[in-house]
């Protein structure tokens, strides 16, 4: 039986550095955008019989954030043999509260005090022997950065696991212990002994997640409620605040005997903070930084992407593969499927990799030097006005490149409602896959102005802001907004190695996601647009007779009020669901030779089509990413429905108003447009019925 060790600690305490050091992996796990917040396991380099698991950094084990849930569920359900609790020596007081929580779970613990040298430089000191006695478990000094003490901590952990010493028993005050005993008595026999105290504590603070661990009958529930009520009256406070105060007293007692802290002074980092979060300089500095990152990623590096898209994936690779397939004697349809359908589709998404790499790289630098958390803080005031939180800022920025990492990075947004809202809205931001459509419409219909392209970004941003304001006033998203609180890491020069590692890791996640999904989608769309009924059987046919054309033709009348009810444009919009850059390609295939889009549509209709495609349901990749993050089919469908309806509404109103003002057309549909516009303005401007005073 292998020994299973779990690493638990606050965010930023050096857990992952230790994990990589001990297992030799280059995995990255952290609370940063775009990276899955999941546990990762690997055997030790020195002993393959020991499995180490790295868990997301958490401050507590209460089930209120996704990372806390991952860590807590792992500890409860998988029950590692021992926990190495990694502590940053500088923030030892706060870290110990997590130590107490782990101990309450009844798992053997050893404590690894990391970065002690940095703390000592600032005049702090930790008496490890005293701490070890007070906590009742081994406490060792380690440095995850240079590896000292790391082998020893593993040995200590293995010893602790083998002895299965029930860890540190921290006793609360008499009143609390009595209440806990009473609850334990009810729970006894319904749950394993080791989890008894943990569960009793959770019941005392009415932790909702507890009901999943123990199913209590009504009588027991009522009994526990009575105990809680008696307890809360006797301490004259709610159980949670009281326990928090008790824990901090216990920790104060422990640290008073083992930790000496230098009096707080403002460091250089603090002084930079005073400038960067200053209302006058903060936002301009940030705007400049974001512009630089964005400019380099989208414009300069974007050219590399265009080269990949047009030359490598558009020309060179399909040619090579086609030749190879011809040599093998494959059928024509198979060649077309592989070359046009799969390489074209997957390749067009992969050609965003350079841009994404650049943007991830910049974001990683901002993050690693400690700037990103300040940006989130500064952006919070602005974003709050339309229902998003400061932490939605990174998703929105990523949204301008690709919806998939944007949706994935929404994980860092605290508060379920804010997170869901962010996921629903980020795909309104025109991603770079929508650029070709923007450019096509702008070049064909408005060649003399740069207005059309900028207008597209304006439409996207307006959609985010307006939808945010409207949805925040609904029952589903309304009510209390999650207040902003975040730890700001100290400023430092970003270590090149970790910046590069994390950038690669983010790219890998993106590629895997895209590679698996879009492959299927591209195949399906290709088949639909190249197969059709002819002479009563299914066979290859020109696109204009395909299933897709059939479907497009059937639903085209739906889009007539928007001005682009031609089957070609409708089918193009539909293939946009596979990948937005398909729209331009599909139009190229479907339009009869020697006709341009301008013969099919009026400028107003073309811009209406652009608006629709900017805002409607995102591509399948983004939808599936959203589905994974939202967690239920219902929410995903609701999100898609909302996006598509918003798109339909915006295009409809835009097109009808254009007809009225440009051509003087006034009919029932114009009236309908005015009615919808009025309804929109009402929803936008009405007072918030769910705002709490």
């Amino acid at each position, binding site marked *: 039986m292998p020994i299973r060790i779990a690493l638990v600690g606050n965010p930023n305490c050096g857990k992952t550095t230790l994990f990589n050091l001990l297992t030799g992996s280059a995995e990255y796990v952290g609370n940063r955008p775009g990276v899955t917040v999941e546990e990762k396991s690997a055997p030790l380099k020195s002993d393959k019989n020991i499995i180490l698991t790295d868990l997301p950094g958490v401050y507590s084990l209460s089930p209120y954030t996704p990372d806390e849930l991952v860590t807590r569920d792992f500890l409860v359900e998988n029950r590692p043999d021992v926990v190495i609790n990694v502590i940053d020596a500088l923030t030892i007081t706060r870290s110990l*509260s997590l130590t107490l929580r782990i101990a309450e779970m009844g798992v053997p613990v050893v404590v690894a005090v990391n970065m002690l040298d940095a703390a000592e430089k600032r005049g702090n000191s930790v008496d490890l022997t005293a701490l070890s006695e007070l906590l009742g478990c081994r406490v060792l000094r380690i440095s995850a950065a240079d590896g000292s003490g790391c082998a020893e901590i593993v040995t200590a952990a293995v010893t602790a696991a083998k002895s299965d010493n029930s860890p540190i028993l921290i006793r609360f005050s008499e009143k609390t212990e009595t209440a806990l005993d009473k609850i334990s008595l009810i729970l006894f026999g319904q749950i394993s002994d080791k989890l008894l105290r943990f569960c009793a504590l959770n019941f005392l603070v009415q932790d909702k997640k507890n009901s999943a661990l123990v199913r209590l009958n009504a009588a027991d529930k009522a009994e526990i409620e009575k105990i809680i009520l008696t307890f809360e009256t006797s301490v004259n406070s709610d159980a949670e605040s009281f326990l928090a105060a008790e824990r901090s007293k216990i920790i104060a007692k422990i640290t008073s005997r083992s930790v000496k802290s230098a009096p707080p002074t403002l460091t250089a980092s603090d002084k930079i*903070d*005073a400038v960067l979060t200053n209302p006058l300089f*903060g936002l301009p500095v940030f705007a400049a930084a974001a512009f630089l990152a964005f400019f380099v990623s989208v414009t300069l590096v974007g050219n590399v992407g265009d080269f990949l898209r047009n030359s490598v994936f558009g020309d060179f690779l399909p040619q090579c593969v086609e030749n190879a397939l011809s040599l093998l004697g494959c059928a024509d349809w198979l060649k077309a499927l592989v070359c046009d359908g799969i390489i074209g589709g997957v390749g067009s998404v992969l050609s965003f990799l350079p841009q994404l790499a650049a943007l991830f790289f910049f974001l990683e630098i901002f993050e690693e030097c400690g700037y990103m958390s300040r940006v989130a803080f500064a952006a919070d*005031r602005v974003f709050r006005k339309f229902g998003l939180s400061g932490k939605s800022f990174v998703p929105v920025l990523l949204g301008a490149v690709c919806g998939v990492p944007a949706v994935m990075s929404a994980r860092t947004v605290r508060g379920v409602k804010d997170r869901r809202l962010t996921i629903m809205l980020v795909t309104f931001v025109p991603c770079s896959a929508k650029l070709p459509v923007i450019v096509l419409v702008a070049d064909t219909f408005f060649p003399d102005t740069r207005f059309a392209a900028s207008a597209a970004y304006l439409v996207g941003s307006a959609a985010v802001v307006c939808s945010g304001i409207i949805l925040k006033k609904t029952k589903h998203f309304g009510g209390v907004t999650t207040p*902003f*609180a975040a*730890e700001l*890491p100290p400023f430092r020069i970003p270590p090149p190695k970790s910046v590069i590692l994390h950038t690669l890791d983010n790219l890998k996640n993106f590629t895997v996601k895209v590679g698996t999904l879009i492959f299927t989608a591209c195949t399906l769309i290709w088949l639909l647009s190249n197969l059709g009924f002819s002479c009563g059987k299914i066979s290859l046919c020109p696109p204009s007779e395909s299933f897709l054309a059939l479907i497009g033709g059937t639903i085209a009348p739906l889009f007539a009020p928007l001005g682009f009810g031609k089957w070609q444009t409708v089918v193009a919009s539909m293939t946009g669901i596979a990948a937005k850059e398909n729209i331009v390609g599909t139009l190229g295939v479907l339009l009869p030779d020697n006709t341009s889009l301008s013969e099919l549509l009026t400028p107003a209709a073309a811009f209406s089509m652009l608006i629709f495609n900017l805002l409607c349901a995102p591509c399948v990749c983004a939808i599936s990413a959203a589905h994974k993050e939202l967690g239920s089919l219902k929410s995903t469908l609701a999100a898609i429905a909302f996006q598509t309806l918003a798109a339909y509404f915006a295009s409809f109103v835009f097109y009808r108003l254009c007809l009225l003002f440009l051509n003087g057309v006034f009919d029932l549909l114009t009236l309908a447009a005015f009615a919808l516009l009025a309804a929109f303005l009402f929803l936008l401007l009405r007072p918030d019925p769910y705002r709490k005073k």
Partner: protein
Amino acid sequence: MTLSDLSVGETRKIKHISVKDSASRYLLNLGFAQGVSVTLVAECCGSVIVRVNNSRIALDKELVKRILL
């Protein structure tokens, strides 16, 4: 008084925190608790950056109100 009433660099002890929802719980997790010393690092329109137990925490207006000094 609240955190935003401090002047930059000033340190005081927390008298009371009102815990009523998960946001306040998060405050506790971040190291705010009765009797803990906090130092104001920066203040901006009611939001603050403070130093607690050697870590720097940014809080918005809403949360500042819940911590009494």
